[in-house]
């Protein structure tokens, strides 16, 4: 299917209700602009090679569009010499695009940092976690405050493997994230944590799909969004449990912290459970900062701004608490602390 032949999605579509395709497209919707490839660099612990395997699991408009942009297709191979691998991507120019693939054959943590001043950036990441492997992937969106960003991810988790995904969204102006994981074999497990800091007029849309295709699989999703100023966070989840996927265990929690009168946050979990013998639960909550928490911290000598900043930081850090990988948690938390120290001017 070519992008030019595709019908544009309507706002009736769950996926495009809050961020219509035309608002995340870099130019006018009928065009596929020339893009500058995202420049990647790696510190240690692996190597980058040209080309990616065919990983076409989805044929939606965003993925087709990203595949038609001029971007370098890059695969990351991890050699096991470092416990954590940092991959830095820089997006520049009017439109920047990247295509990245990672196959995990051994226990490793990779943290992807995406920065740059591009007006628009698009990135498609695919990957798999091979049987019995523990993999961690951190993604830090550190793009410029004026960048529009489209990101798609597709992950496959194999038998008895565990994938931990940690995503920190602190950059970009309008961001659409479509993150999908398939638990394809018995014993596969996903822990996914997302923290969003909404400030100024940021618009951050996360669509998270988790598919339990076989039984004895488990997933745990936590999304924490702290929204200030006139920012807007949207989190839509789609959890599917196939008819044969008995003994699956799935949980989704969405929490929003509203820090100003004009900030907005939506959390819409959606479940499609076809199996009988499963555990599936979801919850969503939005609230302002708890005045009792403020009072408690102020009674310990912290001023109002400092107390509020600490609560925001704690709220966002807490999203990552359920991850098992200490390296991944530490990396993401350190980056978050630095961001908040700058942003909240403590």
């Amino acid at each position, binding site marked *: 299917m070519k992008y030019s032949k595709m019908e544009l999605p309507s706002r009736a579509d769950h996926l495009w209700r809050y961020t219509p395709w035309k608002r995340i497209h870099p130019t006018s919707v009928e065009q596929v602009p020339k893009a500058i490839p995202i420049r990647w660099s790696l510190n240690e612990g692996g190597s980058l090679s040209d080309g990616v395997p065919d990983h076409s699991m989805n044929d939606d408009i965003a993925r087709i569009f990203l595949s038609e942009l001029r971007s370098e297709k890059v695969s990351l191979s991890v050699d096991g010499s470092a416990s954590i691998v940092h991959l830095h991507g820089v997006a520049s120019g009017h439109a920047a695009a990247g295509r990245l693939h990672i196959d995990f054959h051994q226990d490793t943590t990779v943290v992807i940092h995406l920065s740059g001043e591009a007006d628009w950036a698009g990135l498609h990441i695919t990957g798999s976690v091979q049987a019995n492997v523990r993999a961690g992937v951190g993604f830090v969106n550190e793009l410029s405050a004026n960048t529009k960003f489209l990101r798609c991810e597709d992950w496959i988790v194999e038998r008895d493997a565990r994938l931990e995904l940690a995503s920190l969204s602190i950059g970009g102006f309008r961001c659409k994230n479509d993150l999908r994981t398939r638990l394809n074999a018995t014993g596969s497990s996903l822990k996914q944590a997302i923290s969003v800091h909404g400030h100024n007029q940021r618009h951050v849309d996360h669509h998270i799909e988790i598919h339990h295709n076989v039984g004895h699989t488990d997933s745990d999703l936590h999304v924490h969004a702290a929204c200030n100023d006139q920012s807007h966070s949207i989190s839509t989840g789609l959890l599917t449990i196939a008819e044969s996927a008995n003994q699956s265990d799935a949980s989704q929690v969405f929490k929003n912290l509203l820090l100003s009168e004009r900030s907005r946050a939506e959390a819409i979990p959606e479940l499609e459970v076809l199996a009988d013998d499963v555990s599936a639960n979801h919850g969503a909550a939005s609230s302002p900062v708890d005045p009792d928490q403020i009072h408690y911290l102020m009674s310990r000598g912290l001023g109002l701004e400092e107390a509020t900043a*600490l609560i925001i930081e704690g709220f966002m850090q807490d999203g990552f608490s359920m991850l098992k990988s200490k390296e991944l948690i530490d990396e993401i938390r350190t980056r978050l602390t630095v961001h908040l120290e700058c942003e909240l001017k403590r």
Partner: protein
Amino acid sequence: MAKVSEILRIENLHVSVEGTAIIKGLSLTINQGEIHVIMGRNGAGKSTLASVIMGHPAYEITEGEIHYLSQPLEQLSVFERARAGMFLSFQYPVVIPGVQVGTFLKKSVQSVRDEPIKGRAFRKELNDAMSTLDMDKTVLSRYVNDGFSGGEKKRLEILQMLMLNPKLALLDETDSGLDIDALRIVAKGINQVVPQAGCLIITHYQRLLDHVKPDYVHVMIDGQILLTGGPELAHKLEDKGYDWIDVTPEA
């Protein structure tokens, strides 16, 4: 003229919350090194008194004055009171998700002392305080009060008190829910702070007073202190309850 050792002086205090009078003419003076205990039925206004001294915004002082270190308290916000040396151990300590105890303690101590903390000296001080309270160091990496048992929460309150070294310690039912061993440890913490501080303990039970020797025991009923005595009054209340005070209030 105020005595040098005067920590807190409350004169004819009246307090309301959302238009309802809770405290109705209460006077009390606490000097350095003194332990005052307030006992009374549920709803008598004991916790309100502690909260209003600490400056909780929900409470309105409609009449009377509170002086701390001979200065009126009214103009000081909550954090300014804390920085001036006031400490409230909460009856129900609040959970702060995602904020590690170690980080919180450091920020708190730094704020109250208003000076940079030297890492090694701070760690030694913290280790000593935790050792006094028989606390495991793993608590430092846990989130503030998150998943804590009732006893753990109260110990963390006392740990904060030791680290902040207040001039006035307000302890709101710190003994509630503690087993005998925990009670003894918490009492040890209180006794460590008292010589240099004034202390107001709100409690329902006499048993804490086996370990912390009060100078005064006050009975609070319907927003007023109706009776004041020594430690023996707590024993009497334990035996007889409060009904006998209602019929023979002190003038």
